[in-house]
């Protein structure tokens, strides 16, 4: 009985079983407990090496899928930024996809955690210290632990909810601007195509300083925004509205007295399109507006009606042609 099962099982694996015998094998397998079946399978696994080939293309595909799912961590090294670029190429997420870094046994290790939100997607992350970050589209972030500090580098826009831990300050670095945090929620807007880095505090308290001038620090109050200029390294403050600053988290696209050129930049990122402005005379006009979960044509149409320009939308390109005279 055992021998005949063994024989049929092996024939099945080799694709040589007779159809008349398959029923018998199937019935035997259905009668076997998992434990008994494991024993036969393990026996085969440990004693054979002549398997059908896994072609390299498929092997690479499985590998890539696998890496999208595991934590992307690498040791801190001088080639960090080239590796970051590689990681950026590999890791891409869908809209509102959520990625939770698996909690390691040692939350404070020098390993680097990296994530990016590409195209018009947003990503929700949980860092190893349990802080949570939501990344807006075309933004990237890395996190590591160094000299007792939790260090995060951000490019783009992110909303942070930092886990309180007085012993290990949490520092966000955007270029030379450092934002030091104990435990709080805040939003940072820092796309590299913009001169300014905007930090809005939702609750708690944060301290800002320039790496080039670390003794001069600024404290921010809730509902206040710090606007840092990369060019002249100056920080100015203004009061703001928490709902407006975090509107993007709810898929709200909000402009409040913003220059049309800035608004177009934001629309480009939000919808993953390219906007060409053929009439630069309107670039500095200030506009306000708010859109929730709207498609691009609706937004363009609404702006067109309000500001009287014409536009052409083809694929991922929008061309703003001319202003209608009133």
């Amino acid at each position, binding site marked *: 009985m055992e021998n005949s099962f063994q024989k049929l099982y092996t024939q099945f694996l080799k694709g*040589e079983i007779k159809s008349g015998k398959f029923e018998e094998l199937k019935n035997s397998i259905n009668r076997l407990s998992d434990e008994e079946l494991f024993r036969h399978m393990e026996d085969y696994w440990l004693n054979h090496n002549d398997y059908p*080939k896994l072609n390299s293309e498929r092997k690479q595909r499985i590998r890539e899928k696998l890496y999208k799912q595991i934590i992307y961590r690498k040791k801190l090294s001088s080639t960090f930024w080239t590796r970051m670029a590689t990681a950026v190429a590999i890791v891409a997420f869908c809209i509102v996809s959520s990625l939770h870094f698996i909690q390691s046994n040692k939350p404070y290790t020098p390993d680097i955690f990296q994530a990016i939100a590409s195209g018009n997607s947003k990503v929700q992350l949980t860092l190893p210290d349990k802080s949570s970050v939501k990344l807006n589209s075309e933004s990237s972030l890395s996190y590591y632990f160094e000299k007792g500090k939790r260090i995060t580098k951000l490019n783009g826009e992110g909303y942070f909810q930092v886990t309180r831990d007085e012993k290990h300050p949490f520092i966000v670095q955007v270029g030379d601007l450092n934002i030091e945090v104990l435990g709080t929620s805040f939003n940072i807007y820092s796309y590299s195509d913009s001169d300014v880095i905007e930090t809005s505090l939702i609750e708690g308290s944060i301290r800002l300083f320039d790496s080039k001038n670390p003794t001069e620090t600024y404290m921010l109050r809730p509902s206040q925004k710090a606007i840092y200029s990369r060019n002249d390294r100056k920080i100015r403050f203004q009061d703001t509205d928490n709902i407006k600053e975090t509107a993007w988290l709810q898929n709200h696209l909000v402009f409040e007295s913003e220059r049309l050129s800035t608004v177009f930049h934001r629309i480009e990122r939000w919808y993953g399109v390219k906007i060409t402005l053929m009439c630069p005379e309107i670039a500095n006009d200030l506009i306000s507006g708010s859109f929730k979960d709207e498609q691009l044509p609706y937004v363009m149409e609404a702006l067109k009606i309000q500001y009287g320009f014409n536009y052409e939308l083809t694929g991922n390109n929008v061309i703003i042609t001319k202003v209608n005279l009133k």
Partner: protein
Amino acid sequence: MPNLFIHSDLVKKLKEGSYEAFDALYNLYADSLYGFVLLHTKSRVQAEDIVGETFLKVWSMRASLSVEGSFKAMLFTIAKNHVTDIFRQQINRPDFEEYIRFCEDKNLLDNTSEEKIYYDELIEKLAIAKQKLTPAQRNIFELSREEGLNNSEIASLANLSEQTVKNHLSAALKTLRIELRKYNYLFALFI
């Protein structure tokens, strides 16, 4: 056994979270695991999924892996439940018997060929071929070969005479045979 030593060294590094060690272990073992799963499930898609998920588990439980013993045996322990589930599921599919018969015919006619046809390939080609059937033929073919119903069950279900069911079925099989020959499959099984 120098190999065994190297592997336990890799496992040690993997436990420390080394991505390079994980990659090396994947490169060493993905091929055998894939082949092993493919022999059981006869499905490339399933084999691909299981390999991915098994290595995902290896990564997430790396801290609890043992440095002693062989990684190959550990890999089996991690994969076995999943492989067994899919293996049992596959062999109990009504159309799996057709697949076995197909392999048998192929072996008889062309024993020299090393190239094996897998279950999911056959189903894929069949899905394309089925588009040539009339809706009634297709419906009856699926009830018969995929759901495993017999002719009288189909007759009462479709409110047709048993002879009509037989006629539809044989017309369907004839069309499928012709269609599948286009893929160079010696499709003698549906007789």
